[in-house]
């Protein structure tokens, strides 16, 4: 649940909170969004910190 309150001010223009870069990205990408429903099942935690832990792959 993020950005609800900051979003309200821009609500009348649903594209307002989308950066030009993000929109350009959406225009130039085609994808298979299989994260539906994968993200709901595999709820990753601390993904920003994940690089701090490493393991040898062998």
């Amino acid at each position, binding site marked *: 649940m*993020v950005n*609800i309150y900051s979003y309200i001010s821009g*609500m009348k223009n*649903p594209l307002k909170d989308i950066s030009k870069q993000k929109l350009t990205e*959406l225009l*130039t*990408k085609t994808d298979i969004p299989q994260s539906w429903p*994968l993200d709901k099942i595999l*709820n990753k935690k601390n993904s920003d910190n994940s690089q701090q832990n490493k393991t040898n*792959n062998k």
Partner: protein
Amino acid sequence: MITRSRIKQIINEAVGVPDDIDMMVEIFTSMVKDSMQKFKDSGQDLDIGEAEVTNYGDTEFKRGEIKISKEKSWQYVKNSPLFNKEKWEKFPMYKNKVNITFDIYPDEPLDINNINKPTVNAVHEFEPTQFGLKDVKGLGLTYSSGNFEFNITMGESNWENLDTMSPNLDATIAHEVFHSYQLYIKYKKSGKVGFGKEHMMNTIAGALKKDFSKEFNYFLHILYLSLRFEHQARIPQALKVLKTKKIENYNDFIEEIKKTDMYRDVKMLKSFSANKIINDLNKIESFDDLLRKGISKQHIQFAIGGWNEILKSIRERARQNGLTADPFRGLSEKLLSNPKLFFKHWEKVFNRRGDELFRKLTRLYALL
């Protein structure tokens, strides 16, 4: 006299699986597998992450990342034993950057949730300013088609034997290479860049998704599934999977189709219901619903009310980015002023497109 291979080619094209993409699909599949094998053999470190898994609980997963530059990918393509210059000239993909990330989970949490092993999330990305055909000395006409990203969720068993990534990996690569091929054919025939009118729909489906609006996100996902250029890419994708199955008659074929991701897409299209989405939005069953659904309804109100205007903005942005964006007819004011009518309109479109996708899938029987 028409040769047997020409007959095969004609049938393939009629069904929607052009021979032209086959070689590049095979080469890119082996490029991804070989790169992962090399990573594995080198003993490189993997990052460790944690995830909370439905029906299972907490688990660790390992993550690796591989980046293949444009130059390296081209070297791989042209040196591949599968490379054939004559075939390549029919679809001369040239210098594609490839990024691969892979998350390795214990098998059990994936198996419990019936998650395909591996599940491959993929992206084809192109840069309109660099897109197009270019004469390269010694090669002739080349096609600069953009980059590929593959995000792979796999089990330990896949990591132990990377060959088990087939046919799912091959199928996803077929899907993305086909998108590149669609752009190539369109550009070659008409000089146009992009997927046309549906390109704007694909963009709006991504642009209006919000974390707090899962009901509308679901609608936007089905909107994406309804796009015909996406249907077309699902045909070679499905064929890659079906070709690995033991199919002796039409009943076997239908049973195997029902197990594919593409059939799940058909079901989602056919079961979309305007009444359900409206009921779901009005149902308050938890504190989270109370907090979320009010704002979600407002978002939907503005998204529907501004539908035509939003598409116009996207079209303008598309033009500024070098894409061909032809004018389109928007939805009527009547539909945009009433969410129920808006969703009813899309319900009809989605249900019809579900039938269309299923019909296209069943034509694959001719190729098995």
